[in-house]
Structure formats: structure tokens, C-alpha cells
């Protein structure tokens, strides 16, 4: 940890911003506990909406590149997110995509399974908890006596930070483990940053940190967590519980598997992987204990919503990126395929 007395006379400027996120990342920053004081001591905080009130114009007022480090969490979901992304990129020397949402799209990214219309339709009309007799929908521009009210444009496709602006470092996790935040801060303070574009974390998968006993795999049936009480010693996947750990970047210390819950995959795919979901499809399918289309389908029937499992956090950042939008009848909507996905048994003849 950099010593307080080495700190420069002019403190480097630090910005933390939340785009489309749950706020968990901001709390995660606090999870570095007393070290936050070092941060406060070491940095001059120019932006942290979750904690203090700043105005956009203050940031605009800064010279380009005046912010030394910006920890940017949250996905790019609407015009406002994108505007801030561009602004902070311009003003920051080092832009860090902080947390799953900024790095790979995260939970908000699941909206890429559908489209703008469907989201609006559900949220403002169909959701059981919605009371909206007037059928009001948010408008980008609303005229009231006092004048114009504007709202940012809501995009159909959720994006990762680096899909809108170039990013210097990535800090995955939902939320990132304190130790990595510390590592990042120390690196920045100590001026020993890794090559731009690299991920601050590990290049192995969760299995590497998982204490469970692993052996050769052969899956006969998938179970939902509530269906069985898993053996605490044995690999969850081998017990039929879906676990994304095999294909997920390590760094969390295998928190979920430790508590009998399969890895959700929040740290994203392993270093160098193009599509984390594809890795899971390939690996898990390979060890199914079935050799006929019927038998294979029978096992897969016990694994509902595979896409949800495989792309829970990584959808916008994956090769899949988003559900296909049908072009027919002029306007575009995410397609829902109802046809059977079963393999044609004749293929196996």
C-alpha cells in the first residue's frame, strides 16, 4: 500500500460513475473498508454520484484528461449512459470498466433477449405489479405548462462500456471482490499498471479456486437447486446442479460453490475466450450421458432456459450479443421461436 507521505502534493483526480447498474458496485468500493481512507487521502474525488452531489457541468468544466482514474460501473442502456461514457472517456486518463455490467453487460444485459417495445410493454402495462390505468408510457419529450420535460432515449440493445468508448482496464465481478479493487488502486497509485486493455484479475477458471472434489464427469440429469441437497464435498456439476464455474474467470474465491450454489458466471468468460456461453454449451453437452437424440433431449429437458444460464452476465459482451430482431413487417422485434428444437432422430440413423 502506497504510504501516505509519498502522496503527491497535487492529488490525482478520481471519478466513480454508475451507468445502468444496481449500485452494488459503489458499495463494493466501500467494501475495501478502512483502505477507503487511503483512497480518500490519496485521491481527489471529483465524481461519485452515489455518495456526493456533483453536477455534470462540473465534469464538463474539467480539461480533457484531467481525471486521472475513472471507475465506471453499469452498462450502457440509454442515451444518458452513453453521453456520460463519452464525457468521462474524454475527461479521464485511465478509464476502468468496473464490475460485470460495464465489462460484459451484466444483468441489465439480459434485456438483449427482448427489445425496447417488449420491455416497455411489460414494465408499463403487463407486469402484475403495474397500476397504470391511463396507459402512460415515458416519452423523451413531454410538454408541460412549465416547459419541456426530457428523458434520455431508451435503447433496444444494452451495450458494454467498451462497445461505446475505448476502455483501458477491466475489473469484472458482480460486484468485484475488494481485493481486486485494492489491487487496482495500488497499481494505479504505485504507477505499475498492466498493459492497457488487460483485465485486472486471473486467467484461470473458478474450478481453480473451488475446494470441491472433482472427478470425470457424466451428467444424467440436471436439478434445480431446490430439488436436491448437494453433497458439500463433490463438484456441483457432477451432481447435476448447473455451475458456470468451469468456464468462468476465477477471482471471487469460488464464493457461490462454497455455499452449495452453482457459479452464476459473474466474472465472465476466461481470458481469451470469445463467447463464454459457447464454452459452457460445448463443455456441458460433451459430458451428457446419452448417445441418441431422444436420450440427449430427455436430459436437456431438465435444463430450462439454457441461454439464461449460459449468458446470465455476459450477453452484450458475447458473440451472441443480443436476440435476433426480425425484419419482417418493417418494424423489428425480438423473435420468439416456438418450433421444436429437438434433434431429428433420423439424423442418428
Amino acid at each position, binding site marked *: 500500500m502506497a504510504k501516505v507521505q509519498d502522496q503527491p502534493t497535487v492529488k490525482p483526480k478520481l471519478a466513480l460513475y454508475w451507468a445502468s447498474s444496481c449500485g452494488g458496485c459503489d458499495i463494493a468500493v466501500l467494501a475495501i473498508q478502512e483502505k477507503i481512507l487511503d483512497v480518500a487521502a490519496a485521491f481527489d474525488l471529483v465524481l461519485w454520484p452515489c455518495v456526493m452531489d456533483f453536477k455534470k457541468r462540473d465534469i464538463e468544466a474539467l480539461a480533457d484528461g484531467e481525471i486521472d482514474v475513472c471507475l465506471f460501473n453499469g452498462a450502457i442502456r440509454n442515451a444518458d449512459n452513453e453521453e456520460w461514457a463519452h464525457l468521462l472517456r474524454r475527461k479521464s486518463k485511465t478509464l476502468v470498466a468496473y464490475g460485470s455490467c460495464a465489462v460484459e453487460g451484466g444483468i441489465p444485459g439480459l434485456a438483449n433477449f427482448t427489445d425496447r417495445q417488449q420491455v416497455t410493454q411489460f414494465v408499463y402495462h403487463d407486469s402484475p405489479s403495474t397500476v397504470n390505468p391511463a396507459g402512460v408510457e415515458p416519452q423523451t419529450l413531454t410538454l408541460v405548462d412549465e416547459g419541456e420535460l426530457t428523458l434520455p432515449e431508451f435503447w433496444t440493445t444494452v451495450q458494454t462500456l467498451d462497445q461505446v468508448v475505448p476502455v483501458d482496464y477491466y475489473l469484472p465481478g458482480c460486484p468485484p471482490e475488494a481485493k481486486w479493487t485494492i489491487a487496482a488502486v495500488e497499481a494505479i497509485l504505485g504507477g505499475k499498471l498492466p498493459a492497457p486493455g488487460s483485465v485486472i484479475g486471473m486467467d484461470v477458471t473458478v474450478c481453480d479456486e473451488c475446494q470441491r472434489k472433482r472427478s470425470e464427469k457424466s451428467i444424467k440429469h440436471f436439478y434445480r437447486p431446490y430439488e436436491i441437497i448437494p453433497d458439500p464435498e463433490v463438484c456441483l456439476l457432477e451432481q447435476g446442479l448447473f455451475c458456470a464455474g468451469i468456464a468462468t474467470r476465477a477471482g471471487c474465491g469460488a464464493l457461490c460453490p462454497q455455499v452449495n450454489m452453482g457459479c452464476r458466471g459473474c466474472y465472465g468468460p476466461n481470458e481469451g475466450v*470469445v463467447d463464454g456461453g459457447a464454452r459452457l*454449451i460445448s463443455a456441458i453437452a*460433451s459430458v451428457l450421458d446419452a448417445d441418441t437424440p431422444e436420450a440427449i433431449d430427455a436430459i436437456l429437458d431438465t435444463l430450462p432456459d439454457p*441461454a439464461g444460464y449460459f449468458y446470465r452476465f455476459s450477453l452484450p459482451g458475447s458473440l451472441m450479443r443480443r436476440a435476433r430482431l426480425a425484419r419482417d413487417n418493417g418494424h423489428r422485434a425480438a*423473435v420468439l*421461436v416456438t418450433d421444436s*428444437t429437438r434433434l431429428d432422430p433420423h439424423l442418428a440413423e
Partner: protein
Amino acid sequence: MPKRDYSLDNPAWGTRRPVIVGFLCNWCSYRAADLAGISRMGYPSTLRDIRIMCTGRLDPTFVIKALREGADGALVMGCHPGQCHYDAGNYKAMRRMALLRRTLAQFGVHPDRIQLAWASAAQGTLFTETVFKMTNAIARLGPLEWHDTIDELVPRAPAMPSAETLVEEASHG
């Protein structure tokens, strides 16, 4: 074989023809394709094949990549079950394809766009029939158009009509 107007199967094709990426195993289906050639069996030029040693090498990423890069379908072909040159690679492929089809369906990609089929080195005819079948299936489904919902701002290759004309074709069709 007269040149086929695919817009008859689905107006959205316009002047285009379906593009199918084929992943053929080195030992059976690639040789079946060779045999089809040696025997001068004609089949649609929709298939653009890539040789892999075994369907067991089939990484789902390849299929997703192909569909994302503008292919309208992907055809994976290997040795008949029980006859894999590497014992059982084709069974692994069968399992992966089953799961991949289910996953892709959730992304709005019709399962018929990704098919798995077998042909032994002796089955040039079967290979040819399979390409016909696959082509017809894709022809009916129309263009996948998955990529341009992302990369539309980048101009497409000149051969291709623009997305807008497609929309028109579709609405007129």
C-alpha cells in the same frame, strides 16, 4: 440445374441466395463431398465448407460465429454414429448441437438453421441430398439477418441489397 430464384421461396431473399457454412469431418463427410464431386453430382452452391478433423472438434463458437458473420445457416456433417474415425466424436457433436439448437432458439434463431447430418465416405448421394434439404429449409426460412441488427452502420458488401430494400421486399412480399 437451372439457376434458382430463392425469392420464390421467400421474398426476403431478393436477388440473394442462402449462405450455409458447412463443417465437414475429414474422414467421412468431407470425403463424401469429394465423392459427390468425383461423380459430378450437382448441388446448390449455397454450402461453403470448412474441413475439421472430426465433428468432435466442432466448437459451438464456430456456428455462432458463422451465423453472426452473415451465414443463414450452418450444417455440421460427420461419420454415422458408431462409425466415427475417432470412435465417438460425432456423439459429442450430437450432444452439443442439441444444446446449441435450444440455446439459439432463445435468440430467435430457428433450429432448422443449424443442422447435424451424417454421411459416410461412400455416400456422395446422401451428402448431395443433405445439401439440397438444408438449402430448401433455409430458403423457406429466409435470410437470418442477425448481424445487421448490430453492424448495420457499416456498409454491406456491394453484392448485397441494403437492409431497407429487404424491408420493402418483405412488406411487399
